[in-house]
């Protein structure tokens, strides 16, 4: 019994610990700059919209949001389609060399990005892709691909093994059995993979920092990290920006939490 109460109390504290920084950022994003650090109170005394106005009117925060949506969205589409082919083959076709490919893909998920930042920079510069959308999508596709393939392999394996054989007995080719039978059945798995890939790209920082040159191509994390005020840190606007960067992710997580947890743990634990 005491164990149960203790774990209840622990969980409540943990939820508070998890939620507090968000609460505090929301409160601060509506608080006048001048009173931000003057005797902070847990309840706001007055609420203003000035920081949000300044964020969009003066800092043009819509541009990084648009950039992030374009880059993360395009990458997700590429990763899920290309990844689905590869994952299907790796999960459901027996062929020599497949184990090596899987091991290789898993190894690349652990690849340190910093190790290839400078050659990638040279490569992208040579292709005149620095500070462009393709210049981000290209490296993102690579870095998100192993994750996408790995997750999808897990989902394809969960389907009963004889599905294609049954379809092929009925005269379908392998391609038809893949597109007509397997793909529709893995819809939820594809969705989960798309969600996780999107979050991954929405959050990426190092490549975006290295391969963009100006505010017109900054993604959300870069734009927020490089916020500068004239004399001091513009906390009000920064926090308004963090609220905006968090909102879409929070909505996705709340809507799809079951799926996300399933995808995360399937990818990592079952191997």
């Amino acid at each position, binding site marked *: 019994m005491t164990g149960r109460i203790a774990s209840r109390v622990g969980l409540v504290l943990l939820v508070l610990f998890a939620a507090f920084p968000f609460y505090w950022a929301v409160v601060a994003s509506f608080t006048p700059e001048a009173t931000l650090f003057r005797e902070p109170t847990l309840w706001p005394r007055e609420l203003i919209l000035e920081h949000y106005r300044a964020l969009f009117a003066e800092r043009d925060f819509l541009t990084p949001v648009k950039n992030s949506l374009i880059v993360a969205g395009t990458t997700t589409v590429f990763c899920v389609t290309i990844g689905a082919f590869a994952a299907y083959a790796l999960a459901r076709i027996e062929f020599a060399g497949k184990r090596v490919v899987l091991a290789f893909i898993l190894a690349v998920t652990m690849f340190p990005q910093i190790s290839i930042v400078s050659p990638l920079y040279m490569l992208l510069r040579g292709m005149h892709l620095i500070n462009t959308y393709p210049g981000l999508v290209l490296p993102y596709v690579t870095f998100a691909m192993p994750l996408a393939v790995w997750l999808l392999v897990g989902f394809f394996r969960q389907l009963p093994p004889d599905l294609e054989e049954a379809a092929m007995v009925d005269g379908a080719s392998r391609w038809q059995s893949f597109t007509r039978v397997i793909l529709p059945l893995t819809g939820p798995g594809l969705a989960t993979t798309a969600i996780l890939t999107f979050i991954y790209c929405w959050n990426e*920082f190092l490549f975006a920092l290295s391969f963009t040159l100006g505010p017109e191509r900054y993604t959300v994390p870069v734009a927020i990290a490089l916020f500068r005020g004239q004399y001091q840190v513009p906390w009000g606007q920064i926090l308004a920006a963090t609220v905006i960067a968090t909102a879409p992710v929070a909505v996705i997580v709340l809507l799809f939490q079951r799926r996300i947890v399933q995808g995360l743990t399937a990818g990592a634990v079952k191997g």
Partner: protein
Amino acid sequence: MTPIQPAPSRAPRPESEARTGWLLTAPALLAILVIALFPLAWTVWESLHEHDLRMPWLGRPFVGLGNYLTILHDARFWQALGHTALFAIISVTVELVLGLALALAMNRGFRGRGVVRAAVLVPWAIPTVVAALLWRFIFDSQAGIANVVLTNVGILHHPLVWFVHAATAWVPVILADVWKTTPFVALLLLAGLQSIDKELYEAASTDGASAWWQLTRITIPLLKPAILVALIFRTLDAFRVFDLIYVMTGGGPGTSTEPVALYTFNALLQNLEFGYGAALSVIIFLVTFALAMLYMRGLGLDLGGPRRR
């Protein structure tokens, strides 16, 4: 592909299967090879040269392992390595202990489980840059909320300027990391917990085993694979830490919170020492690779999945 055959109950021929397999895998593999492996090879080659973009007149002479020898005597590198190790050990330990506690609590099944899961998932899902800024704000300024709360509770006698001293600057950094990644650890462990046979606990309870005995003799041993996965994933992440520290302290005060990834980034993109930076990159890669190998060995991952025939 294969034309429709009159007697298709035979299995597809292995050669055509292999061809289909490679054909389907090719685009994904190509993308990975071009953008990951080719640059890696370039980095290795570059690391054998002296290449300083600030001094282009020096050219790009081949120096063999010269850069690596310099690293051996580079105090700032060893310092950065120390910071990285310190950060990894402390944060991963705290995350594993807290994550296990959280997983055990969540495994009990109670009302409002969805709320807890959502509450812990959101920090995991947001950009690291955002998490770093949220916690920097909490610890910023002598009148920030952390100082106010800690002085009011009596833990601090007077407000601290957290980011001015190396020792105190680590506190918000590690706290932010724990806040952001404990949920991930907890979810991995929870999945492990759910696969343990409930009857083991029932049998142990009937025999009068204490909760502690059950935890240390049943739960933890059976949870070992999940713990190992979480441990290695987190160690790798902690070893590559960049975003969090770049935003929270910028590696400062001075270079006292600078991890290896940030040192490498500075060598490359601030000092434009491409040869030296490349050598640092290779070292990070090798350490990560060794850790990853350890992971795959330790788990004996079954990469083929269940045999289908």
